[in-house]
């Protein structure tokens, strides 16, 4: 559940979600669930010319299984905190 918890921490921040079909979408992270499904707000497709059908989409739901990367804001990670949480998770709780 570490990544779920982590993503919950950065709700409200601007992220770029790159999908396995190479579509990259910038938007405000609205919510995330246990499957790492993601909801984005105020979305903008990075390469709009290539994906004209996405022009009228402002809010979207992305299925967790199709996500390749999530690009975070530069100050999105507190490394110390993440290290601690990782160790705790590895110990099993």
């Amino acid at each position, binding site marked *: 559940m570490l990544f779920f918890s982590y993503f919950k921490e950065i709700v409200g921040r601007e992220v770029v979600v790159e999908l396995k*079909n190479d579509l990259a979408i910038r938007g405000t992270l609205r*919510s995330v669930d246990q499957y790492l499904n993601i*909801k984005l707000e105020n979305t903008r497709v990075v390469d709009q010319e290539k994906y004209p059908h*996405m022009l*009228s989409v402002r809010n979207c*739901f992305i299925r967790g*299984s199709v996500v390749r990367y999530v690009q975070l804001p530069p100050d999105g990670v507190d490394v110390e905190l993440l290290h601690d949480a990782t160790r705790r998770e590895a110990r099993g709780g």
Partner: protein
Amino acid sequence: MSWSGPEDLYLSTSLASYLDRKILVLLRDGRKLLGTLCSFDQFANAVLEGACERVIVGDLYCDIPLGLYVIRGENVVLIGELDSEKEDLPPHMSRVSVAEIRKAQKAERDATDLKGLIRKRMEFLDMD
């Protein structure tokens, strides 16, 4: 992604906030379906009412009516809420008939095939 009460509906990751809205479903094979969301579950299985497929070839597009569709969740890439005010594509794109879009699709496919064929024949040149 369970059913959620109205208080957290807009904050949850559930698709409940898109119910009865016009949505765009992007599938893994690249197809784009439009329709009104009737139902969904935790796998992103979805039922679309008045569904149509939007075929885009270059600057041409066509909405091919399909009817009531049940989409298996594993094929879903993205579900987008369509802005009711600006539902349309960029102004330079024009709507054509089903026959025309099929023709354009075939032409595009043929061109891709031809490119593949030429590339294959030129392989000995080791262009990369």
